[in-house]
């Protein structure tokens, strides 16, 4: 399980999560995700394109970060690439209608700072 980030200019932060967002995986990265998403950036892109598994506990962590970003006036979006497993989890819970998801980095980065 790993979480890393890159700042792209002053307005955008990209966070990459690898591994499984199941119970132990989410417990190991949730605090760090919350801290990384709390940075004073306008846009936050969370890259899930190489994530192996996304359970409800992981969706809840993403949702809480997206809500915190919105409350400070920013926008969080997701990159899913061709990850059918992650897309299935997001669509099954309807979270994709609350946190926009995109196939490509470029689309996501544009949307996050729009």
């Amino acid at each position, binding site marked *: 399980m790993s979480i890393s980030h890159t700042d792209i200019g002053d307005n955008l932060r990209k966070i990459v999560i690898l591994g*499984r967002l*199941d*119970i*132990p*995986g989410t*417990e190991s990265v949730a605090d760090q995700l919350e801290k990384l998403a709390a940075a004073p950036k306008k846009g936050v892109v969370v890259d899930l394109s190489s994530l192996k*598994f996304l*359970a*409800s*506990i992981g*969706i*809840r962590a993403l*949702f*809480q970060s*997206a*809500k915190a970003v*919105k409350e400070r006036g920013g926008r969080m979006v997701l990159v899913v690439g061709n990850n*059918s*497993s992650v897309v*299935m*989890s997001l669509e*099954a*819970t*309807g*979270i994709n*209608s*609350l*946190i926009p998801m995109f196939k490509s980095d470029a689309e996501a980065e544009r949307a996050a700072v729009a």
Partner: protein
Amino acid sequence: MHNGIHTDKQVETLAIAASGDEIRRACEWLATALRQRAVPDPQVQRLELALHEALANVLAHGGSAARAEPIRIRIEVREQATTGEAHVDVTDAGIPFDPTGTPEHTPAKTLAEAQPGGLGLPLIRRCSDWMRYRREGGRNHFVFGARWAKL
């Protein structure tokens, strides 16, 4: 029997303790066992997710009784001429709980009004082609599964 696993040609069982690490072990076991029996990937992904959420419910809501005894999982793959089915049976000694009897989840329309939580049962519903529940012998028996057309 090895490491709680019993195998048969189309049936395999596993016993786990109620913990996050054990739930991960069960999900990985399920995915491997289904792939070994040529279950298609989309059905494997759906059932792995449904199993995770079913076990997470036991862990969160089953109480001390659920943690005192092993949770047992049984998979069975049934092949017919044109279709296949994978059945997953989860039994636990926790507080009686019927996942099939809960109301449908209504997704929030905005991030501001949305509340965290309550996503596990919608995931199980969306990932399963059927669900059944019974209480028997002091244990919850929750059965769900997926089917597919054979080419």
